[in-house]
C-alpha cells in the first residue's frame, strides 16, 4: 500500500473529468487516476509514481528506473503489489 510504483503515461482517457490515464506499469497497461496532478504539466511518455492507483508525483526516467529496480529487489512484497495492481480496475 505504501509502495510507489513507477509508470509511464501512454494515453489520456476521456471522461471522468479528465482524471483517468493509461500507464505502462512493468510492461502492463493499467488505468490510473491523475486527478492529484492537476498542477503539473503531464505529457505522454512522462513517468509518474503511483500510490494506490493515483499518480502522486512526476519523476524523470532515471528515477523511475531506479525506483523500479528497488521494488524488484523487494521480492514478495512487490509481487503482491503487482498482483493487486493487476486485479485492480479503476474507472
Amino acid at each position, binding site marked *: 500500500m505504501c509502495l510507489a510504483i513507477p509508470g509511464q503515461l501512454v494515453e489520456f482517457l476521456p471522461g471522468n473529468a479528465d482524471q483517468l490515464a493509461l500507464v505502462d506499469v512493468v510492461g502492463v497497461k493499467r488505468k490510473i487516476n491523475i486527478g492529484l496532478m492537476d498542477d503539473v504539466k503531464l505529457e505522454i511518455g512522462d513517468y509518474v509514481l503511483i500510490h494506490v492507483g493515483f499518480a*502522486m508525483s512526476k519523476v524523470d526516467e532515471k528515477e523511475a528506473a531506479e525506483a523500479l*529496480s528497488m521494488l524488484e529487489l523487494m521480492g514478495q512484497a512487490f509481487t503482491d503489489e503487482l498482483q493487486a495492481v493487476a486485479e485492480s480496475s479503476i*474507472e
Partner: protein
Amino acid sequence: MRFVDEFRDPELAEVLGRQITSLCEPGRHYKIMEVCGGHTHTIYRYGVQDHLPENIELVHGPGCPVCVIPMGRVDDGIAIAERDGVILTCFGDMMRVPGGRGSFLEANARGADIRMVYSPLDALRIARDNPDREVVFYAIGFETTAPSTALTILRAAKEGIENFSVFCSHVTIIPAIKAILDSPDLRLDAFIGPGHVSTVIGCRPYEWIPRDFGMPLVCAGFEPLDLLQSVYMIMKQFSEGRAEVENQYSRVVAYDGNPVALRVLADVFALRPFFEWRGLGSIAHSALQLSPRYAQYDAELRYELPGVRVADPKACQCGEVLKGVLKPWECKVFGTACTPETPIGTCMVSSEGACAAYYNYGQYAKQRLNLEVLR
C-alpha cells in the same frame, strides 16, 4: 533463506560511511529516528546500520500505518462487515491485523465479506457494481494515501453513489512526531523525514522541529544510498552547528508538497479532536475524519459501532517499538510467540513494521556482523 542485499554502489556507500564517521564528535552518541516504515524496511534489508559508526544509532519510528491501528478500530471494521448486505473493502496489509475479536481474515472465515482492494477507486467500483449491497472502504494510511481516499469520496459524491461509505482511520505524521518528542522515554538527536508523505505535505510542516527542538530533519528517498546520504547531511548540520529542514529527496519531493492533494485533503477531511494510536495512546488532532459536508459518506455515522477501546495483548510491546524505545528483538515475544505467520502485534504484520523487517532481514545482518567479528 533470504540474505541482506548488496548496495547498488558499494564504493559510494563506503565513502559516505567514512565521511559520516569523520563528522562524528568523539564520545558522543547520536540517535537518529527514521519516521517512515519504508525506510525501516530499507535499513534492515540492506544492513544500512552496518555502514555507520557505532555511535550513530538508527531508531525506528511510528510511520507504519497498519501498525498504528488500535485493536478497537479493527473490531469496528469487523462489526461493520458482519452487518447484512455489507461488503467491507481494505488494503491487503490490513487483512491479518489482529483486533480484540481476531483479524479480518478470521472474520471472513466466520462468513463476513471483506475484500482486498488495491485502490479506494476499486472499492467505489464494487459499490457501483453491487447497487443492492452497501460497500464500505476501510481507509488507512498517512498523508500518502489520504488524498486518494478524498478524491474517491469526491467521485462518489459527483456520481451520486449512495451505497458507498468510508471508515476513516487516516492519520497525520506531524502530531505523531510531536508526541514522540514530548515523550520522556526517548532522547533523540535528529530525524530522517518520510519520503512519500513529504511528497504530499512538503517540507514546511517540519520546520518547527529544528526551530523549537534544535534538531535537524532531512527528508529522504528509499534507496539505501539515500539513507546514508541523509545521515551524512544530518551529521554535516551537527558539525556546522546548524539545525534545519533539508530535502535529500528533491528529485521527488517538492518543498511545498503537492498543492492539489493538500487542497483535496482540506476540502474532504477535518481533524479529529483526538485519535488513539496503537502503542502511542491518544494524540490530539492526529487523525482525519470526513468533514460535515461529506457526512453521508462517513461509515462511523452510518453504522452503529462498538467504538470500544481494546487493550493490546499484555505480552505485546509494539508500543515501545513504535516509539523507538525498544528494538524489535528486545520485545519479549519477538520471533517466539510473535512471528509474521502468527503475529501478536501489528509491527510483525506489515512488511514495513519494524519487527517484520527485522525478522525477515535484520537477523541475517546481525549474523553476518558476528561472523566478521569471529574472523
